[in-house]
């Protein structure tokens, strides 16, 4: 990467309020909602250099930079987004948005339902990836963006990028689908359900209406996150990092933290349960499970992609077993059959599913080269 790369610096979140009702796949109509978002870089005069970053399960709109007075508030994809970085903010106008149902400022289960004056909680509707994409499209309208130079996402974010290219073919020039899948496997849904059961069975969940009780289903969220975290790492990666290391160097013959991996997972679980909403976690995992763009097209992914006008970059990581390279290949195969241009990289990495957030050099080179062509195309 270039030596001049740096941070986008201090950023501020913005909010867009929408009063046009949004009809959701589940049948519920959201009468009004807000989306929290951030932007980096400048939209050019032709408005051709806009890039949308879609977030994954636990992500949000704060993609890059940090907030004033808080140096530790670095965005979740700061290593990929910034001046001189692969998603180069000197060339692109980058938009990050917190999805509907999220817990970082956009309307979600913890928001107050104007009809009742109380948090939505258990009554907040379930979301699907196409719902999110339609909400994001309204934000694009608001920002004056007719067509994205690229829609980019990893994991659940990649699903949104893919959905964008299918639902709004004329509005997406490039879709970058990273460590993702055209639909979840049974095993993947199974992991999601164990995570959900951890939350649903926490006595402090109160059927989703824990806000009124002044409690948080911390134990459930913590377990869900611990389980998730295991599946985001690879066996090798975990072995390299933690092995069988003991905190105190010897067995204690008890159930407190002994192995470093236990300590790490508990820490991750605790950190997550302090800041993440349980209902959001539930609905995000359901959105993952429901995602299947082939389904409305007679279970034919090629037919679904037939509408797309986008070009694609698909990338997977060898040690990712939660969204394995096989799932990405499935998508690539369908894209080729649908006659869509696609580049596919299968990156050797020990980082497991988390690799899409890391900087394995071939991955960075692939992103850099692809996006620099995109930038040339839109004369950014």
């Amino acid at each position, binding site marked *: 990467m270039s030596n001049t790369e740096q941070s986008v610096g201090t950023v501020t979140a913005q909010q867009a309020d929408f009063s046009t009702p949004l009809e959701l796949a589940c049948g519920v109509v959201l009468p009004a909602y807000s989306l929290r978002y951030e932007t980096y870089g400048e939209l050019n005069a032709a408005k051709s250099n806009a890039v949308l970053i879609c977030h994954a399960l636990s992500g949000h709109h704060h993609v890059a930079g940090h907030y004033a007075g808080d140096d530790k508030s670095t965005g979740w994809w700061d290593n990929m987004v910034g001046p001189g970085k692969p998603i180069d903010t000197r060339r692109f106008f980058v938009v990050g948005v917190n999805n509907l149902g999220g817990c970082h400022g956009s309307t979600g289960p913890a928001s107050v339902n104007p009809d009742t004056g109380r948090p939505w909680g258990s009554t907040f509707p379930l979301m699907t990836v196409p719902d999110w994409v339609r909400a994001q499209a309204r934000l694009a309208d608001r920002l004056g963006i007719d067509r994205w130079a690229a829609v980019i996402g990893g994991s659940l974010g990649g699903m949104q990028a893919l959905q964008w290219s299918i639902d709004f073919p004329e509005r997406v020039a490039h879709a970058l689908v990273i460590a993702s899948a055209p639909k979840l496997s049974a095993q993947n849904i199974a992991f999601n359900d164990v995570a959900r059961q951890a939350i649903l069975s926490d006595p402090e969940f109160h059927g989703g209406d824990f806000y009124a009780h002044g409690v948080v289903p911390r134990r459930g969220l913590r377990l869900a996150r611990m389980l998730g975290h295991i599946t985001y790492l690879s066996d090798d990666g975990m072995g390299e990092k933690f092995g069988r290391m003991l905190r105190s160097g010897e067995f204690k013959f008890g159930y407190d933290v002994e192995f470093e991996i236990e300590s790490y997972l508990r820490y991750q679980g605790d950190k997550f349960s302090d800041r993440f909403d349980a209902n959001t976690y539930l609905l995000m995992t359901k959105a993952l499970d429901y995602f299947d763009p082939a389904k409305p097209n007679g279970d034919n992914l090629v037919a679904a992609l037939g509408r797309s006008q986008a070009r694609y*970059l698909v990338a997977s990581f060898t040690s990712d077993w939660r969204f394995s390279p096989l799932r990405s290949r499935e998508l690539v*195969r369908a894209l080729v059959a649908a006659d869509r241009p696609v580049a596919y*990289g299968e990156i050797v990495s020990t980082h497991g599913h988390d690799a899409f957030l890391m900087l394995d050099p*071939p991955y960075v080179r692939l992103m850099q080269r692809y996006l*620099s062509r995109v930038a040339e195309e839109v004369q950014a």
Partner: protein
Amino acid sequence: MTTLLRNDLQLIAGWVRPGARVLDLGCGDGALLSWLQQHKQVRGYGVELDVDNVVRCVGAGVSAIQGDLETGLSDFTDGSFDLVILSQTIQAMHHTEQILLEMLRVGREAIVTFPNFGYWQNRWQIFRGRMPVSETIPYQWYDTPNIHWCMLGDFEALCAKNGIRLLERVVMDGSRRVGFLPNLLGSLAFYRVGL
């Protein structure tokens, strides 16, 4: 991207019909596909094992799919390409016969090129007691990726065995076409084949 093509790729490019749907196996840095896209309006895909080459292809605007040809062409459906190209790679493959059949499963026609082991300079080096090393075979015996050597007749026999028709054959020695005694005087063989 340069518009100049290596001699051997130029010859292959001459066999490609404008607007064809082309699959280039072992597409390297994408030079051939990039040229074909620009000059013959082909819709092309490449398959490439090396991620650095995939990155180069991306830079050249070529649709490169990272993958291993030895595992077959299961990413591609039957008859989905007008032409499948395998350029100077077949001699380095374990599953030689399988890739040939796979090429003609996914493509209507195939172009296969390979260094001719029967080239007189190779024979001469063998006669002098050493394995051949030359411009078209630039490896020592102990580090060569080339494991399945053949001469013109061998390749043609393999095609015959599988009912594959020879549609066109050109044999080159450097940049010169060889008509006389091709199996002796040609260093590179080019075949266009079909079922």
